[in-house]
């Protein structure tokens, strides 16, 4: 049901620019107003969200330790520096592995219950990791490629990226691998949500909607490039003029461009308020971005309440002085009459 709602919603989103541009001729509105607002909302929302997280204190260092700790004797035990870092640089490596290689997801296993043989087994299950990597890197490459639209002169690294992405040399215009792989990744991520009963059970509209939306963006982009063969020069003119705050909307750009742009705008609007903020959140997770070192170095908790004191030894001894004396335990203060008794 949640999937269906999301799908219908994305279809509606496709219709809006088709009607808006195709019938109502609101080219400026859909070509300039909406995208620039979306971009502003995205940037402001993203910054606010990150600031909201970052300003909150981290009272304790609670890294999840994924390996051997820093030992007191390095000849006896070897620290797993990347999964259980104890210094800043080691933690940076852990974070790089997490952000760039999806280290934790790479650990994934699937439980297999074999009742007949009384065995609980844990099979390696790297599919999620693989397709997540495909999707995220394709997405990244595609976003990077689009930067050429914003830059009057395209820098060399982008040229190389594009060349590499199209190195298979299939078709005209040349097919980008990232276009195919992002769809493969997305379809896997969607398929697994629909097929695995456990994942389907936990999936919300918040999970299906961004998937359908990004699929819509990818498909409209593919349609523009390979089928409608839209006028990229005109689009670049428009975008570059936008960045120079000169607003002009050239005529004759295919409607599919407006669909694509509207869906991207929706994604930008939606991004800061959604789970997609894991893009920023992954950097701020206290179980990952801190060294496991509070036994070695002091960590300050800004709200540590120093008025909380232990139940004092004095109160404890007051409570149990007589029996402690009886048992011969050392005391700070002898019970009344004990000294005289001892003398006598």
């Amino acid at each position, binding site marked *: 049901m949640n999937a269906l709602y999301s799908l219908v919603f994305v279809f509606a989103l496709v219709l809006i620019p088709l009607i808006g541009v195709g019938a109502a001729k609101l080219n400026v509105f859909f070509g300039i107003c909406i995208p620039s607002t979306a971009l502003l909302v995205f940037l402001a929302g993203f910054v606010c969200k990150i600031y909201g997280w970052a300003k909150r204190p981290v009272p304790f260092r609670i890294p999840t330790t994924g390996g*051997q700790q820093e030992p007191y004797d390095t000849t006896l035990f070897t620290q797993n520096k990347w999964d259980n870092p104890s210094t800043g640089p080691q933690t940076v490596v852990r974070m790089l592995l997490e952000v760039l290689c999806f280290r934790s997801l790479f650990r994934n296993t699937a439980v297999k219950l074999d009742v007949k043989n009384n065995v609980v087994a844990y099979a390696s299950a790297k599919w999620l990791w693989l397709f997540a990597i495909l999707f995220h890197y394709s997405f990244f490459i595609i976003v990077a490629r689009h930067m050429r639209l914003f830059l009057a002169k395209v820098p060399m690294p982008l040229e190389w990226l594009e060349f590499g992405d199209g190195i298979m040399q299939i078709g005209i215009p040349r097919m980008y691998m990232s276009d195919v792989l992002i769809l493969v990744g997305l379809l896997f991520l969607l398929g697994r949500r629909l097929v695995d009963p456990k994942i389907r059970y936990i999936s919300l509209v918040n999970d299906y909607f961004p998937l359908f939306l990004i699929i819509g963006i990818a498909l409209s982009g593919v349609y523009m490039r390979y089928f409608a063969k839209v006028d990229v020069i005109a689009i670049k003119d428009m975008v570059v003029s936008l960045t120079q705050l000169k607003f002009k909307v050239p005529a004759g750009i295919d409607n599919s461009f407006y669909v694509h742009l509207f869906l991207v705008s929706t994604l930008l609007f939606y991004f800061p308020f959604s789970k997609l903020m894991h893009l920023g959140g992954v950097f701020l997770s206290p179980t990952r971005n801190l060294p496991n070192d509070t036994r070695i170095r002091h960590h300050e908790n800004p709200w540590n309440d120093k008025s909380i004191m232990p139940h004092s030894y004095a109160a404890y001894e007051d409570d149990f002085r007589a029996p402690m004396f009886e048992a011969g335990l050392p005391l700070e203060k002898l019970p009344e009459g004990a000294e005289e008794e001892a003398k006598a």
Partner: protein
Amino acid sequence: MAKFSKKPIELLQSIDYTPPRTDWMSTPNDFSDGRYAYPAKPEKIEYLMKELPGAFANPREWSPGDVDWKLPPNWKDIVHEGFKERLNKYRSLKVFMDVCVRCGACADKCHFFIGSGDPKNMPVLRAELMRSVYRKDFTLAGKILGKLTGARVMEEDVLKEWFLYFYQCTECRRCSLFCPYGIDTAEITMMARELLHLCGININWIMEPVANCNRTGNHLGIQPHAFKDILDFMLDDIEAITGKRINAPLNEKGHEVIFITPSGDVFADPGIYTFMGYLMLFDAIGLDYTLSTYASEGGNFGLFTNADMMKKLNAKMYAEANRLGAKWILGGECGHMWRVINQYMDTMNGYLQGPQMSTPVSPITGTVFGNAKQTKMVHIAEFTADLIKHGKLNLDKSRNDYVKATFHDSCNPARGMGLLDEPRYVLKNVCNHFWDMPENTIREQTFCCAGGSGLNTDEIMEIRLRGGLPRGNALKYVQDKHGVNTMACVCAIDRATLIPLADYWAPGVRITGLHELVANALILPGEGERTMNLRQEEFEELNAQEEE
């Protein structure tokens, strides 16, 4: 108490990982017998409210099985305000509420899910129980779109559901290891439990030990003189086993080291053998140390209630080290005690350290424990491993030849510290036969005993045994394959909880602390010929049994 009579095979057959047809928000709570632990006695709550104002509330007679939980009339405000306060105090909570993508990587990593198939035991869904309320109360989309975005209004049934499922989480953090964003359900469970406490929802198995620890210094409320009696009994037993009368200093000033270990080991079999092991070890090396009755509890059940309570109980360690003039603290085998020491202690209470405290140095080997220079607290497995490396222990490994050992990594030292190789090194040096369990069930991927975080009470035995399936099954694997008959561990809760677990899933395997095996192999200076182990079982019989 609910009787639990399912056979292991019946329990296995009852596990179904396919979720029910009803969506989870409409699945009703099941509060039948055996599904919940008993609530705290009102006098314990009253006592703690006096000792630590603000953390606990609403002392009363009630039962989770009743329809009316006698909640305070403004409980919704209490939860809402408490939630808001914690979202501002903990970046972890705020980030974990916001970033989950429900990828499901955590789903089958939880021992309670693996053993029950209950979808609300998937860590992601456990967190959603709270996240759904977060969305409704604290996000714009949730306020406007409601259920469509997975938001729901806080109702009494939701609060009851929190109680059911945040007391089916042992805060073991296995899920957080697999989460691509490191979302830590332990952190979420802690926050949920704090909020529940504000409404007076709690369990006695946690609250009574907390109250006892605060007053008497230990779990069971044993008073100092009785503590000394128990210690004397242990010394008698050690004399019977070794022929040597050793000494165990108690509450004495002017020793270099104060030794603090969980009090469970003072009272309960088989923990007492581990405790005897410590005493024998200290005698063998002539350690200048003292025990304390005031700080006789290393384990900190405060961790399972409220951050302030944890701080208050933990502060006794430094207070007593200062009073007795100890330079550093040696800590015994305990799971969550070491989570607290490694990740919270110095941050909470470091300022209480007296000027006499200094970076721990082994007085026997001269080794500087640089990795403990801030807290001044060393784990006994580190300490003993160092002694072994320097050849300071006279060991007769063959005394442990009847032992076919494996090692259970306790969750907290594994995933909240990384104490993995030290205990194995010690174990391999005192024991000739050792096999690890399968790799997905040990070290950082270790499975919980299913009784951690204060859930080691018998009224929820079915929940515990279901949660114990992954550990039990891995144990059975090495039992069948290598004839393993002993599972060693470095946790006092494990020593209590793994026994019913092993009896159920891998009958015939006994549970032991690491230092019970150390002391069994250890030759004390001036001891007589040993014919029995620390449990006073004759070696001849044990070896004969093994040969059969």
